């Protein structure tokens, strides 16, 4: 059976492990982090159980319809938000846009893979201490991650890199390019994305359908449900349990994680013993799970002796700018992020803010354009402005936001979810640096679309966040971070964080590529630890971990 066929199957696993088998590695979540861990660990001969809260989504369920896809793919569980961020104001019940299903948010990601720059690993050293920001340097350098980065790019098949061709230009890209040239920018192209421009690795070539974020109907976009997970399952060492919502991780008297408790698809409480746990539930659910796992030994939540679990929540400085042109653009045609300009991602404090941002052209269908160009707007002026849809080109920016300790994921004091657990609540204030960057980025994009000949320009506030980061930050110092440079908990030696929660700072690039690179490196570390433990075992007849 080929891998794409496998993804069409039901929720039946290919192998089953006993719930009291304490030799398996339990991976919580099947997205970019969890899916990569499953592939890498099984490839090295390790038995894994992946617990995924959502179902397998049949690729035949993908539709070119924004709201139907939203209903199908989105993580809809209750959330709450507060703070001065426009997202907390406009979308308090849905401050994030992530997915629930096998593949996690790789189901809807647009495939953007900008590279991190070396200076971004040293935010504190380069930007200096900023008032109100909890900046730090990463405990790893660009040189540490670079080999894993290249491996991640090759694995995911990023276009325009490592010998893979670029994608062809669409109409909106040509506008982006025209504006970029007229503003004097130099570093732009049709955007390296983990979407096949040519058939590769069992995936098809992109038909330039559009609707990347609604589930790729070409079967060209890299996602763990069509790459890492079927590969892991093919080894016979990966049991993927779907519709299993992990609610708690229990530990033994020595403080080792020993059991992962979850509610299965029938609503029955289950548990799985484990050797290691890798948590990759996205930066809201990951800290929420740790906070919900409090115990006598860890009264503030599992692995939270630092008090940093849930804090320093980051989500990038984002926003959209739209230009109306005299002639048709049809932004709906082709990849949803068909081009990128990297000039503003540089380190240049003269612009009045620390950090950098990337600009891209993007696409919304009429349904999302009407709902999100100006959230909450109504009336004749607004509806008339929607009538020029076919002549509108959309652009966005994504930049580094500041970690703020009070921006955090915490447990709601009273609201409970369908499992009876406190729902996560997000506090999101914008830092002054975020606001300066947004103003600059919006200004540059306005200038760009005007330079390209737009007759009317609109800017919109940020939309629910898909880049959720930092809530279990990485630090060498156990009092200042949750995990070490391998993503291993300082408090619980067999607990790893394998998603964007471990980011020390947000950096400008879209985070998936780095999440995958960190997971590759972490899986390699875990395998080396296990081999070390085996040698230890044969000597002392006692398992170290």
């Amino acid at each position, binding site marked *: 059976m080929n891998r794409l066929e496998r993804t069409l199957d039901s929720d039946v696993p290919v192998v089953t492990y006993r719930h009291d088998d304490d030799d398996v590695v339990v991976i919580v979540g099947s997205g970019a982090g969890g899916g990569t861990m499953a592939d890498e660990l099984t490839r090295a001969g390790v038995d894994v159980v992946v617990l995924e809260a959502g179902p397998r989504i049949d690729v035949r369920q993908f539709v070119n319809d924004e709201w139907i896809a939203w209903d199908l793919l989105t993580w809809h569980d209750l959330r709450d938000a507060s703070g001065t961020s426009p997202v907390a104001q406009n979308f308090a019940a849905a401050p994030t846009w992530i997915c629930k299903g096998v593949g996690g948010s790789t189901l809807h990601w647009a495939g953007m893979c900008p590279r991190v720059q070396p200076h971004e690993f040293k935010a504190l050293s380069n930007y200096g201490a900023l008032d109100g920001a909890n900046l730090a340097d990463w405990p790893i350098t660009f040189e540490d991650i670079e080999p894993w980065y290249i491996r991640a790019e090759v694995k995911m098949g990023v276009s325009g890199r490592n010998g893979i061709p670029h994608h062809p230009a669409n109409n909106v890209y040509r506008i982006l390019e025209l504006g970029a040239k007229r503003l004097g920018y130099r570093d732009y192209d049709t955007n390296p994305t983990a979407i096949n421009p040519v058939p590769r690795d069992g995936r098809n070539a992109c038909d330039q359908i559009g609707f990347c974020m609604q589930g790729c109907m070409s079967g060209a976009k890299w996602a763990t449900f069509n790459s890492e997970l079927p590969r892991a399952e093919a080894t016979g060492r990966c049991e993927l349990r779907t519709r299993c919502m992990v609610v708690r991780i229990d530990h033994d008297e020595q403080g080792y994680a020993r059991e992962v408790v979850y509610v299965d698809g029938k609503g029955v409480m289950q548990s799985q013993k484990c050797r290691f746990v890798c948590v990759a539930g996205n930066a809201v659910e990951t800290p929420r799970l740790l906070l919900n796992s409090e115990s006598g030994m860890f009264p503030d939540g599992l692995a939270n002796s630092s008090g940093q679990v849930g804090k320093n929540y980051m989500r990038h400085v984002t926003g959209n700018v739209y230009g109306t042109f005299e002639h*048709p653009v049809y932004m709906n045609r082709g990849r949803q992020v068909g081009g990128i300009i990297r000039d503003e991602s540089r380190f240049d404090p003269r612009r009045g803010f620390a950090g950098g941002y990337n600009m891209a052209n993007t696409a919304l269908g009429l349904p999302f354009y009407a709902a999100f160009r100006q959230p909450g707007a109504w009336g004749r002026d607004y509806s008339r402005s929607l009538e020029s849809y076919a002549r509108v080109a959309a652009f966005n920016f994504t930049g580094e936001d500041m970690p703020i300790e009070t921006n955090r994921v915490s447990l709601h004091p009273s609201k409970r979810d369908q499992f009876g657990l406190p729902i996560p609540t997000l506090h999101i204030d914008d830092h002054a640096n975020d606001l300066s960057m947004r103003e600059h980025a919006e200004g540059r994009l306005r200038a760009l679309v005007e330079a390209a000949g737009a007759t009317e320009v609109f800017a919109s506030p940020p939309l629910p966040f898909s880049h959720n980061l930092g809530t279990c930050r990485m630090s060498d110092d156990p009092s200042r971070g949750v995990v070490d440079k391998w993503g291993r908990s300082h408090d619980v030696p067999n607990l790893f964080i394998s998603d964007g929660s471990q980011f020390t700072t947000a950096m400008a690039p879209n985070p998936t590529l780095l999440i995958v690179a960190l997971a590759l490196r972490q899986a390699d570390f875990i395998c080396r630890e296990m081999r070390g433990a085996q040698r230890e075992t044969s000597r002392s007849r006692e398992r170290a971990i």
Partner: protein
Amino acid sequence: MTGFDEHTARTLIAMARRLYPHDFLDDSHYAVVVERIEAARDAERIALLTEGAKALDNAGDVPFAERPEDRKVADLEAIEGTGFFNDVRQTTVRELYSNPAVWPSFGYEGPSGHLGGYLHRGLNDATWIPDE
């Protein structure tokens, strides 16, 4: 109760049109909003919206649907932020623009997967964009 009485439905259709007016669309496109709410079969919601429509009617001498445009706008501005207003506005913005029947009027091409995408169908056909 899982449906609206005729008068309430007419009031809600008039409200949907005032929220997102497009003179080239006839009332059937706004009626879709009411149909979608009814399809959800949520008696509590139907009751809340019926009550809201009634309050909107009671805010003037003639029924809401019969008032002039500027009066309707003022009456809607007065209730902006209420649960009734938010529900009708959110439902309208979602249902009106996701109805394939209105897409051609906006130049929105909708799904393309079944047509093989745009790789060989106008991906880069805007000849008006200069090459510099």
